[in-house]
């Protein structure tokens, strides 16, 4: 038997275990490893602090989503040894492979920011990128009586790059509902020169921030947190005081990647952007947040990548050319508060622009416009995630290759990626 080994049973690893179980020849044995028994629906963390989702909505047993054909090993992973085609587990046991898929995602690294894990951490300063962080922040939002609510993005790239913006919009909505908006200053601090990384979307979203009275402190590169003075300080010595700090710390690949000496300066793995093959070794493939690809780190992206990677690995197994190409397609709903939302659809070359999705003129979703249906789409994503996406079924009408149909592309946005 030949061996296919998958590291990480999060969004990407789970999808790959399912598609490969359906499609790989019977001479392949499939094994998948993850350290914890719970599969978290990470997009749900955003909604917990506002009471839209509870803890129960965002966690389910991991095994439930894995195919019976694959052997599931619950264990930490210590190291990948590309030269020897083997992986060492936390207990020292070694697993050999013919093909390796790395889907170990990324994690927040608050320890990278001077002072962030100081005395305010978990009290006045929180994150919502982890289950524990979202839980504590839920309690903090419940107790909130007004003051300065500061959102900070430490540095790019971060997974789900629109999540901090959504947090700001939802906080505006939540506090308005509770009669506390007038008593709250919401400040959005970002290292970018605007709300988003791409110009057309950034202009539209900047405008919305302004409309909602959210103060934006841009080009803000956080240098340290002053826990005594309760303020964040940028490298160019701007100070922003907070009563509650909602931090999106530096995002990095797992330490496993560093231990294996396979990552860049953020522990992301250099990956071929078309084929998803690791640049270091031909029988290693990388998917999801673990890659260094210049597109969003998002569940939707992992899903599109999986369609490409499944075909490519099947070709590789047969010794054929890998013909499928990933175009960087990302498709993200953005909650904008008060029961509305946006939808962004883009890839490596094409930045997000207004239009209709997935059908030209018809939609039903509006690209880069605020609609109620986009909001419902975002909420429906939870159902789609648990029931379709993790199984690796194609999303109806949405191809892994981004479609240019229905997009209103201004001349300038066409070329600039």
């Amino acid at each position, binding site marked *: 038997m030949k061996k296919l080994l998958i590291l990480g049973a999060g969004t990407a690893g789970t999808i790959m275990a399912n598609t490969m179980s359906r499609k790989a020849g019977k001479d392949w044995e499939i094994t998948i490893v993850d350290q914890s028994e719970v599969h978290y629906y990470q997009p749900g963390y955003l909604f917990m602090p506002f009471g839209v989702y509870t803890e129960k909505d965002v966690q389910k047993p991991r095994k439930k989503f894995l195919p019976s054909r694959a052997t599931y090993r619950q264990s930490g992973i210590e190291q990948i040894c590309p030269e020897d085609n083997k992986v060492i587990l936390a207990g020292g046991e070694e697993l050999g492979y013919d093909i390796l898929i790395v889907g170990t995602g990324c994690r927040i690294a608050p320890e990278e920011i001077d002072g962030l894990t100081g005395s305010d951490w978990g009290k006045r300063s929180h994150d919502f990128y982890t289950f524990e962080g979202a839980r504590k922040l839920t309690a903090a939002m419940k107790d909130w009586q007004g003051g300065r609510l500061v959102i900070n993005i430490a540095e790019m790239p971060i997974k789900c790059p629109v999540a901090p913006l959504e947090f700001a919009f939802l906080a505006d909505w939540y506090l308005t509902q509770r009669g506390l908006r007038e008593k709250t200053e919401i400040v959005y601090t970002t290292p970018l020169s605007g709300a988003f*990384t791409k110009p057309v979307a950034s202009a539209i979203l900047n405008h919305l921030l302004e409309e909602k009275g959210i103060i934006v402190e841009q080009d803000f*590169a956080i240098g340290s947190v002053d826990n005594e003075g309760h303020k964040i300080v940028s490298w160019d010595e701007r100070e922003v005081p907070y009563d509650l700090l909602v931090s999106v710390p530096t995002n990095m690949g797992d330490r496993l990647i560093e231990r294996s000496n396979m990552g860049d300066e953020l522990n992301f793995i250099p990956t071929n952007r078309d084929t998803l093959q690791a640049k270091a070794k031909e029988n290693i493939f990388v998917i999801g947040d673990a890659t260094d690809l210049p597109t969003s780190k998002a569940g939707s992206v992992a899903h599109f990548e999986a369609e490409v990677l499944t075909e490519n690995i099947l070709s590789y197994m047969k010794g054929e050319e890998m013909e499928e190409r990933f175009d960087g397609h990302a498709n993200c709903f953005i909650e904008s508060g008060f029961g509305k939302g946006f939808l962004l659809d883009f890839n490596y070359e094409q930045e997000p622009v207004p239009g209709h999705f997935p059908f030209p003129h018809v939609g039903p979703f509006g690209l880069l416009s605020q609609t109620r249906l986009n909001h419902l789409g975002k909420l429906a994503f939870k159902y789609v995630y648990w029931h379709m996406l993790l199984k690796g079924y194609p999303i109806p009408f949405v191809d892994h290759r981004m479609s240019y149909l229905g997009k209103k592309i201004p001349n300038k946005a066409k070329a600039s990626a």
Partner: protein
Amino acid sequence: MATKELAGSSVEVNEEGYLTDRTQWNEAVAAALATEEGIELSDEHWKVLKFIESDFAEKQAVPGMRRLNKVGGIPTKDLYRLFPGGPIKKAARIAGFPKPASCV
């Protein structure tokens, strides 16, 4: 796009003042671009510019802050001292590279 006279040579720049053709770049052009930013280039500045140049050759991208720290060995504090305001954007412009596009 516009054509501009810098240090005796004529160069193409985009609307934000970044060179659009790096073959038009040379050390005198760098010095002139630096002057526009109110910076006088020292050996320390050149260390940063040289790293950006060699890293761009390898990665086809302007290195971010963390890469300048970890791979280039230049602390963030120094970068802000050398290129006040926006170190990466300014250093990239002076080094003749495009404005760094942060990933989505």
